[in-house]
């Protein structure tokens, strides 16, 4: 081999190496999804369902046609927002699980647009602003508690979730209630609704807001000095402080921006969700979107672009699950979808998931070696 060949071979090897490392995170998310689906299949099998048929129904219900795809996207929209809430704070080094509560408050604020009249478009914008501001204000509680009293954000955001839950229960039942329809709040007027994007589906223009917000977050974090500060503080607070970065500022900023995201999720699920365009008592349309967003964020690797993809997947699970639960003679209950989601989250939490497979391969090989040796000794004995 000439020296030149050797070098180009090296370059090839190097290229392959680089591609693989670049794909590493993507690979892990895909593996987690596969693992989640496998666990789901196993449970279905144990409980006497037919996993193949169930997943086939799920897949068809999620991505089987343009109507299904639109529904999946629609289900993914609020998850994009709440996932971003979680991810922004993770990037800043915090574990903010308050998206759920911030979203409730945002939804309640959005519904308030029903009480005044404005030209179409402007009315919508004002509603969006209401929701965003409400979400941000709600998120400031835990942020300020952390800054002034050192309260751990995990505890405080959980508490704030409960407060907001019952606060919004109260508002829905007594303040924002529709006098004619006691089970829900007043309806967002037509002038303040997100127009429907695909007729006959839930998919509204709120998807553009979600994508725009994701791109905004991406741009902010990776292309502005402010986002740089947030990421530096998240990865190494002492070095950030050394670099002249105010940690208090990055905490406040990431919480507030996260709150905006969660508030927008509230807007999307009221002003952009037909047919009710209102909050129904008991918050069935909102419940858990904040928590599911955390799963989306994990699977999307806390990266806005990854989140867009992961939200489409989770939205698909939700939409497809609805089909699955009515499919065939022995339909699989919707809860199975949540089992799959849970398994995915657990799989994502396994560090270096990709390495699990070589490790398994190695131990299998080792086992094989043991067997071979056993057999060899048997033969010798014989």
């Amino acid at each position, binding site marked *: 081999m000439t020296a030149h060949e050797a070098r180009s071979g090296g370059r090839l090897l190097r290229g392959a*190496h680089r591609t693989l490392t670049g794909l590493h995170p993507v690979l892990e998310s895909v593996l987690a999804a596969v693992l989640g689906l496998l666990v789901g299949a196993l449970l279905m099998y144990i409980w006497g369902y037919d996993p193949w048929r169930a997943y086939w129904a799920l897949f068809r219900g999620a991505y089987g046609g343009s109507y299904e795809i639109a529904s999946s996207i629609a289900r993914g929209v609020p998850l994009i927002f709440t996932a971003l809430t979680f991810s922004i704070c993770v990037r800043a080094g915090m574990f903010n699980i308050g998206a759920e509560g911030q979203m409730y408050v945002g939804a309640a604020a959005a519904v308030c647009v029903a009480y005044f009249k404005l030209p179409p478009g402007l009315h919508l914008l004002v509603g969006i602003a209401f929701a965003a501001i409400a979400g941000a204000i709600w998120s400031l509680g835990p942020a300020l508690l952390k800054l002034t009293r050192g309260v751990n954000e995990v505890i405080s955001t959980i508490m704030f979730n409960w407060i907001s839950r019952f606060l919004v229960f109260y508002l829905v039942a007594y303040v924002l209630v529709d006098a004619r329809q006691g089970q829900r709040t007043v309806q967002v007027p037509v002038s303040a609704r997100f127009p429907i994007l695909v007729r006959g589906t839930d998919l509204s223009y709120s998807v553009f807001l979600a994508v725009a917000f994701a791109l905004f977050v991406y741009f902010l974090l990776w292309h502005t*000095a402010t986002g740089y500060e947030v990421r*530096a503080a998240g*990865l190494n607070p*002492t*070095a950030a402080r050394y670099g002249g970065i105010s940690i208090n500022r990055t905490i406040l900023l990431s919480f507030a921006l996260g709150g905006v995201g969660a508030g927008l999720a509230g807007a999307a699920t009221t002003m952009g969700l037909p047919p009710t365009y209102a909050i129904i008592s008991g918050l069935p349309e909102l419940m858990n979107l904040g928590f599911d967003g955390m799963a989306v964020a994990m699977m999307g690797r806390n990266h806005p672009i990854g989140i867009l993809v992961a939200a489409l997947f989770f939205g698909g699970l939700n939409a497809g699950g609805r089909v699955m639960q009515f499919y065939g003679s022995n339909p699989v209950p919707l809860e199975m979808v949540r089992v799959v989601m849970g398994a995915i989250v657990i799989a994502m939490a396994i560090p270096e998931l990709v390495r699990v497979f070589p490790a398994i391969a190695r131990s299998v090989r080792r086992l094989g070696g043991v067997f071979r040796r056993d057999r060899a000794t048997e033969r010798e004995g014989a």
Partner: protein
Amino acid sequence: MSESSSRSAEENGYFLRAEGITKIYSDGTVALREATVELRPGEILGLLGENGAGKTTLTKILSGLLPPTKGHVVSPRGPVRFSSPREALDFGIGMVHQHFALVGTFTAVENVALSQERPLAPLQLAQTRAKIEELMEESGLRVPLDVPVEKLAVGEQQRVEILKVLSRDVDLLILDEPTSVLTPLEVDELFRFLRRLRDEGKAIVLITHKLKEVGSITDRVVVLRKGEVVGDVRTSAVTTEELAQLMVGKALETRAGRAVELSTDEIPAHAPQRHREERGPGVLHVENLSVAGDTKPVAVHDLTFDVYGGEIFGIAGVEGNGQTELVEALTGLRPALKGIATINGRNILGLDPRQIYKLGVAHIPEDRWVLGLVLPFTLAENAILGVHRWDEFRGPLSILRWRKINAHVRSLMERFEIQATGPSAPAKSLSGGNQQKLIVGRELAKDPAIVIASQPTRGLDVGAAQYIRDILVEMRDRGRAILLVSADLDEVLALSDRVAVMYEGKFMAVARPEELDREKVGLLMGGVSVGGKA
């Protein structure tokens, strides 16, 4: 390790052999090419090479932290393959890392106990403490035992790390640049202890950039250059000149455009030393400054001094005598208890680091992993830490100008010979010395009015260290003020126009380096006052 294994090792002449090791990192960096190194019992092996030559990589492979891409590690009993450092430790291989692997919130005793026990066994704290105390006695390496290690100075953490490995009875002890943060006295004690271990039949690998140390303690030297073993010789059979040549590749010649004196470790004194009349106006003024420490109520006692433009003011002292706290107080990272500190007449106490940088301060921190770098960040991102809000790098709407930043990084890489695949390589993929070059380059590129430099040449190879010293001197000559804190006594004495010796938060003496010699400083560093204070 059992008796029998070490005896069989001796019969075969070696304890462990790295055979034809090639290591390609995931980003395609080839760190080692077909390297073959033999480690023999009863021998201290020096591992030498420029920054990024592959020394750390080789030792990580030997100690089971990294798998080789090609080649294998063999013991006289056959090939060995460790999938974790623990397995390597069980085999009798202990490594003291260039960067520490300690649990910050645990005390020294707890850290050592943690490394001893099987996962589910209860920690044997009392036993461990007794063992450490015995080891401290034997090795002369002393550390506070009941303080969380994150509160300790870097040098003290280093000592904990060494004690941790020593406490396991290892047959092969690998030390990656252990001396870079130790004072000469501590180095002497460590070496005495290492010699004893060698005489007991242990194999020892020592990585260092100090040729003098190689000459004084090693039996054999392996020189790495760009991942290849270019020399494997008995120490007694080579001169330091020859070693230096092997390291650099060519005969001694220019590096970054200057001749480098590699012939000895003696740092050339930067004559002509200036006279006091020549120095510029006062830049840093400190008066009756007291600062609290993490472990002591007062770490800096009532200090008063000035640093003038056009002078290098050196602070010598054993680490942990208040230097860290002093620097942190002056750079906005730690509040002062009382006193005054000004830069060009402007108060700096109570300001945050950003405000202080605005007054023209550059800060080379002592701990590059904790303060100096955000390791997962890329080179480019790290190169703007602290200057990311400068107009040069930030456009309207706070948008970062990545193109300019990348150009800046490339110029830093060139000027400071930072070896990396490019501006988007993560900082954690750089070798220790190259990380240091990145920090130093970033700070010196600010062209500040005053440089506050803690251990600026720590971990740099001889050529790079000299280059940085030259820059510091050149900045001084351009009228900048430089506050140099270093555990490297030779460096302080060679570079400084005035030297202060710090002990327990106070200056034992402030003098011109001509008025001091190593012995005298050594005494002062130990808290013994000598006559003739300046």
